[in-house]
């Protein structure tokens, strides 16, 4: 047999390698789009708002004098919102996921519930704002308080936490469950001492990513009517509040260009906060993975 002389066999090595290189370039470009946009955005923000990132920017309240304006109430409001949202959403979300994975029997009803949760994760955030306005602000008469905001945000991220926790529980090896049950552990003992610790990195990652989504959300806060000008920090759960995205939204709408610089500076703070949270997710996951029972 003489492969080279056969008319049926044509290796076309050069053409295939060209195509391969072309695809590699296209895929690299696809990756770069995201990175370039982020870098461009950051550079633009630093140029516009970098000069506004002074000490008093963090310790002053919103002011109509651009040189004295700060983000204290917005930053404190965002941090409170983050803490409360986490405290509400995590127990409920993780609890629901554990029940769905470990207790619920598989059936048509369960599939329906599952489908609903997946659907809820894709519902636009403004819809959660309307729900929060109708239910928490008006019906439960919580008014436009920190608590109403946190409850709304908790609803928003609940499906994401449920799904992330379910994924994490599913990735726990079956053998772990079976050997624990074989030794006479109760269902709760298995969950508490084996499943949750092993699934913790996945759960934590999901939780932190979900909470950082809540921190960056603006639409639900606008719908439930968070206040824009607040020169005090909340003293109780029922106090009115503002948050970084609301402050940014307000500043970009002001006529004077110096407020848009302040908006850029506030966006930088928000971005750093989000990057820090995502960074924390990675660090926590790595630490848990090292200490993971094997």
């Amino acid at each position, binding site marked *: 047999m003489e492969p080279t002389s056969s008319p049926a066999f044509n290796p076309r090595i050069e053409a295939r390698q060209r195509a391969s290189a072309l695809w590699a370039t296209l895929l690299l470009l696809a990756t770069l789009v995201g990175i370039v946009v982020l870098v461009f955005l950051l550079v633009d923000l630093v140029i516009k708002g970098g000069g506004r990132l002074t000490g008093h920017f963090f310790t002053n*309240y919103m002011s109509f004098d651009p040189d004295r304006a700060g983000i204290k109430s917005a930053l404190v409001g965002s941090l409170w919102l983050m803490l409360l949202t986490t405290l509400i959403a995590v127990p409920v979300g993780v609890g629901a996921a554990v029940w769905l994975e470990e207790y619920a029997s598989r059936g048509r009803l369960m599939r329906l519930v599952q489908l609903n949760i997946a659907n809820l994760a894709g519902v636009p955030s403004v819809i959660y704002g309307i729900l929060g306005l109708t239910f928490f602000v008006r019906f439960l008469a919580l008014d*436009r308080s920190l608590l109403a905001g946190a409850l709304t945000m908790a609803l928003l991220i609940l499906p994401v936490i449920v799904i992330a926790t379910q994924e994490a529980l599913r990735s726990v090896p079956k053998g772990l469950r079976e050997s624990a049950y074989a030794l006479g552990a109760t269902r709760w003992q298995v969950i508490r001492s084996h499943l949750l610790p092993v699934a913790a990195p996945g759960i934590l990652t999901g939780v932190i990513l979900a909470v950082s989504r809540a921190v960056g959300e603006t639409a639900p806060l606008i719908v439930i009517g968070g*206040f*824009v*000008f607040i*020169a005090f920090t909340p003293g109780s759960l029922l106090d009115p509040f503002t948050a970084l995205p609301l402050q940014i939204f307000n500043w970009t709408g002001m*006529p004077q260009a110096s407020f848009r610089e302040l908006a850029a500076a506030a966006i930088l703070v928000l971005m750093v906060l989000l990057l820090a949270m995502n960074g924390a997710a990675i660090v926590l996951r790595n630490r848990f993975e090292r200490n993971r029972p094997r």
Partner: protein
Amino acid sequence: MRPVRAAFGSRWMLAAAVLAGCGRGPVEGLIKIDGSSTVFPITALAAERFMADTSDIRIAVGISGTGGGMAKFGRGEIDISNASRPIKDKEVDKVRAAGLDFIELPIAYDGLVVAVNPEATWVDCLTVDELKRMWEPGSKVNSWKDVRADFPDRPLRLYGAGTDSGTYDYFTAAIVGEEGTSRADFTASEDDNVLVTGVAGDPGALAFFGLAYYEESADKVKAVRIDGGKGGGCVAPTFESVETGQYQPLARPEFVYVRKDRATDPAVGAFVRYYLAHARTIVRDAQYVPLSDETYGLVRARFDAQTTGSLFHGSTVGVKIADLLRGMPADTTRSAR
């Protein structure tokens, strides 16, 4: 001279007076304000300065549009409503149906600027009639040539405030003649910066927005002079022409509405009195046009007397605030339109 200090000498004496008066702690409390984005900078600036003096009173100001603010006001969710138009009769009914009442306080003027791109050298002044033909429902004006025969045949693109805003309500009342009606095919935004950017980038554009936004972007857009058709000729929008009443009909009053049952609250009362006593400086610093000292005196008297009800019955086109406050019947001061 600050009103609180003027009356009581110091914050501590004020506190003592309240202690003696009602057996409660120092004046403290939470004042919730919401409504028009146009009035927001004025009220929030008043709140900022007031809180710098009186640390125990906390004020939160939101933005949900004049209509949105009135809806919250009618449900008793807020203490003060910012409005860039007078309260409507059906909003009055809602407030009263909830067992509440309100004190209407005019606090400033704002001019609405009709702006075009600087490249639109052909237009310098427009009459109210020409603006009406551009904006009226079903308008067929799609080229500048349709506005006036000697204008070039360039496409005309319109930008304006969103239909939920008091600004839109006022502009349509003053120009089209009927509040809330206009052609639908214009670019609407609640954010005046969007309108400025739109006009700055489009040689055929025409927009209306607040005077403060024009003052900040006079290098990017050109203000058209307005001929109100009352023999005054073409008038440019400036702080002076709005204040003197020459810039008509696109100068309008701005309001705050105070819930009557909350007006007697020491915190709300102290804030409103501070606001009215310093209104001239606050309004000017917020880049709006103040009312005359005499008018502010009448407004203060109205608040002190707790006079409820609206003087305007839904329209402020062409009215003189001071005359209305002095108790002259509204229809004699109403414009002929």
